[in-house]
């Protein structure tokens, strides 16, 4: 039974084993299968066969088998790997778990992920670091829709090698015909998926057929068992050897004035002292001085090494920059075509800002509407306005500054990213860079001689945006009107933008979904910014119910020119006033997503001014705003 351990107490044998283990290579693989195909059983079996299970664990397995087991008499190997109590009770695997075992030749890291469609994100996460996928099939059922989906997902994540594990052969009388039919079907189905190798093996995870040794129950099969195959399968990428050097800077190491090193993990290629390098995105050039390590300076560093480099020149480099081979630097861009897998319960909102994190970069981006959403079962392209949890689509992203990158096909590290929600900080999506969009290169901001400052000095004022937010019927427009009259009387140049007016013109194509509301605010913010550039005190009255969108407006317009005014009335008061009769309609279900009724209003947490529009009249409140603008130096007496 002992597959990989020296069985004697001979110290020499142990030392030989150890030195082998130390020099073993690592193979990371993912197992995919639908519920009940026998995935957990297979993994449990692999751990057992490789002696990763100890007596105390077997004892508790015996106990657990009695309590939760589904196998009657046999050990329920699945219980070894279903970790969280919730899932043992439900008898399913719900998350990504990582398992470890070793054979004589290799150490294995297994990503164990659930197969059901609602767990696509978990499978994609597991596949992201995998070099090989074991696709499980229940011999009684053959290729299912799920098999297509699983194969598609692993291929999308760049996995090039597949083992087709045709399981439960014991339940089909170890039939050669069944096995061959399934193998043929799979070869046909996976043609377009770009796999470099597909190995089909008939097994029984439960009984142990073709796991460690060739099974005597299937004399017609001579392709070898699973373990010996995993031991030798070549998952190396020959192009790895000729890839140019890249290292994303993770940390600037500056213990004192005499040392300035750039730490990171080499993403591809080789680097040696005296190599010419280019820093991206700045395109500055220098030479490698030293490769510093705790065990002394190194002669070279290669893909996968965590190192600290010093350069021959004093160049300003920070986290997120990439150090690359000078004769073959990577590209820099700020607009990309992306493949995105949405991972959050909250749907994707085009037009809203997300944090784009790729390698060690972290920048703000805005997503376009999806070009299409992919049906992962039929591989068809479907029209889509947004992406929901577990949906895969293609869209554009506009970054707020250029980053160094490579496409995912060329480099997994430099071409992968996650998206982070700006307010909940949740990781909402993962994805891959398909290609950059060159549009940005031909559009340059033109520098004008007469600028914002010049225009506003002529008007003797400091322009800003007075952004009034609050419920419908809070009194924003009335206060705005009163304020603008007072400003006019003081010879202040102003402009007023009102929700209802803008929605009838510039934004008449937008509705009231979260995504449209975000786009609505983005456009208004951009227009206000132009107004501010022209030197005007700009009054904006918009419900703008979402904090994150107001933050976006603040970011676009600029902190110093943005005055957030919260026109505060309780919902009951606004609803009682109901000047336009809208609340009544909303209550009757005639206006979906009406703020306060069908859609939330998020009060500002740090408004510059809060106006109590119940206790005070619009006139009084407008006076308060005038004094505020004077105090802050936007207008003069």
């Amino acid at each position, binding site marked *: 039974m002992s597959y990989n*351990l*020296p069985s004697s*107490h001979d110290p020499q044998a*142990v030392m030989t*084993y*150890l030195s082998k*283990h*130390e*020099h*073993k*290579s*690592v193979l990371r693989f993912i197992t995919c299968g639908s519920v009940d195909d026998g995935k957990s059983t297979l993994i449990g079996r692999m751990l057992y066969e490789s002696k990763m299970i*100890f*007596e*105390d*664990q077997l004892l*508790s397995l015996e106990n657990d088998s009695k*309590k939760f087991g589904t196998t009657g008499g046999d050990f329920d190997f699945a219980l*070894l790997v*279903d*970790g*969280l*109590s*919730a899932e*043992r009770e439900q008898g399913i695997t719900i*998350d*990504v*778990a*990582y398992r*470890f075992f*070793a054979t004589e030749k290799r*150490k294995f890291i297994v990503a*164990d992920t659930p197969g059901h469609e609602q767990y696509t994100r978990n499978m994609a*996460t597991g596949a*992201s670091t995998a070099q090989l996928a074991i696709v499980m099939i229940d011999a009684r059922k053959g290729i299912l829709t799920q098999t297509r989906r699983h194969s598609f997902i692993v291929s999308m994540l760049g996995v090039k090698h597949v083992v087709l594990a045709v399981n439960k052969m014991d339940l089909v009388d170890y039939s050669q015909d069944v096995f061959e039919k399934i193998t043929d079907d799979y070869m046909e189905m996976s043609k377009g998926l770009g796999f470099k190798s597909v190995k089909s093996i008939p097994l029984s995870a439960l009984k142990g057929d073709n796991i460690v040794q060739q099974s005597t129950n299937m004399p017609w099969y001579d392709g070898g068992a699973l373990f010996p195959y995993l031991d030798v399968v070549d998952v190396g990428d020959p192009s790895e050897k000729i890839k140019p050097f890249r290292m994303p800077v*993770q*940390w600037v*190491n500056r*213990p004192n004035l005499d040392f300035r090193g750039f*730490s*990171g*993990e080499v993403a591809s290629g080789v680097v040696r002292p005296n190599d010419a390098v280019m820093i991206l995105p700045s395109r500055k050039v220098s030479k490698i001085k030293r490769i*510093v*390590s*705790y065990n002394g300076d190194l002669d070279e560093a*290669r893909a*996968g*090494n*965590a190192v600290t480099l010093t350069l021959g020149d004093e160049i300003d480099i920070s*986290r997120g920059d990439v150090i690359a081979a000078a004769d073959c630097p990577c590209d820099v861009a700020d607009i990309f075509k992306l493949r995105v897998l949405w991972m959050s319960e909250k749907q994707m909102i085009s037009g809203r800002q997300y944090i784009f994190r*790729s390698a*060690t970069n972290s920048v703000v981006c805005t997503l376009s509407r999806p070009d299409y959403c992919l049906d992962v079962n039929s591989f068809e392209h479907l029209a889509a306005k947004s992406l929901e949890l577990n949906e895969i689509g293609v869209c554009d992203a506009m970054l707020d500054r250029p980053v160094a990158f490579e496409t995912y096909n060329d480099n997994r*590290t430099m071409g*992968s990213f*996650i998206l*982070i929600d700006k307010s909940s*900080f*949740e*990781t909402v999506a*993962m994805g891959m860079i398909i290609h950059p969009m060159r549009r940005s290169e031909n559009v340059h901001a033109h520098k004008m001689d007469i600028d914002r400052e010049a225009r506003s000095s002529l008007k003797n004022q400091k322009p800003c945006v007075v952004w009034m937010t609050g419920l419908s019927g809070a009194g924003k427009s009335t206060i705005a009107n009163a304020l603008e009259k007072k400003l006019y009387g003081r010879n202040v140049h102003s402009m007023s933008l009102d929700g209802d007016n803008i929605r009838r013109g510039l934004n008449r194509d937008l509705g009231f979904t979260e995504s449209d509301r975000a786009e609505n605010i983005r456009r208004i913010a951009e227009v206000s910014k132009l107004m501010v550039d022209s030197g005007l005190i700009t009054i904006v009255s918009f419900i703008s119910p979402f904090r994150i969108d107001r933050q976006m407006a603040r970011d676009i317009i600029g902190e110093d020119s943005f005055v957030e005014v919260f026109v505060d009335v309780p919902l009951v008061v606004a609803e009682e006033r109901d000047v336009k009769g809208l609340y009544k309609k909303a209550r009757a279900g005639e206006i979906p997503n009406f703020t306060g009724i069908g859609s939330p209003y998020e009060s500002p947490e740090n408004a510059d001014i809060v106006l109590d529009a119940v206790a005070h009249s619009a006139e009084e409140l407008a006076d308060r705003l005038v004094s505020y603008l004077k105090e802050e130096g936007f207008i003069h007496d």
Partner: protein
Amino acid sequence: MTYSFTNLDALESESIYIIRETVAQCENPVMLYSIGKDSSVMLHLMMKAFYPAKPPFPLMHVDTTWKFKEMISFRDARVKELGLDLIVHINEDGVQQGVGPFTHGSSVHTDVMKTESLKQALSKYGFDAAFGGARRDEEKSRAKERIFSFRDVHHRWDPKNQRPEPWALYNGMKKKDESIRVFPLSNWTELDIWQYIARENIPIVPLYFAKERPVIERDGMLLMVDDARFPLNENEVPEMRTVRFRTLGCYPLTGAIESHAATLSEIVQEMLLAKTSERQGRAIDKDGAGSMERKKKEGYF
């Protein structure tokens, strides 16, 4: 020189990457130093990650006051040798109430002097990220825990609500009052740890090596009588036996094994041929399925 990138090299790089990522993304990290072999490996990786700088954060030891004497002296010597800052935190409330494993039992003791004490310390110093040396091969619920593992204000873990971690893209952004436990050794196995200790010559507490020590046998465990606080029953007389420890913790809760393994290679040899898993020596893991998960939800590291 022929270039080869081994299993251990890959693990080392991955851990260093995680450690640097934490420091780049968090404001006030701390390394929880438990003095055991995993902590020793983690400390070594910290030194490597920032060399020639020192790790830009302190170490913290949550001392239950019941650790082996040799652990404490080893700790102090290591910290001095490496020139690092060490915070030692003791739950003074627990000390005042006289909480200890003999008087209150293992679960109350662990809860007050370890779990509560850790929460106290993290809140007191406002640490937003704490490095821990846990490995995924140790225990089933850990296999599913992320490398950046979030805790709410009450330091609780919600296994159902974990951030996905594709590739090596760790999202360390957190809301006020949230904190992260970071596990740089997640993908190491016990064997990897021992081999790395041997390869890098990392010092470890001598208790891991077999030696004659005063022990008594109680409830099937071999316990070392490390100081005079050990209440001996009438018929219990400590005897000198050649033993060592596979894990280290509070001496009244940590079982020794009889062994003659006095060198690293002997330890590894013994480990490879062992029939029981590493955590069996810890009293805390014995309460059956799901116990570790429950403890973690409550705030155990």
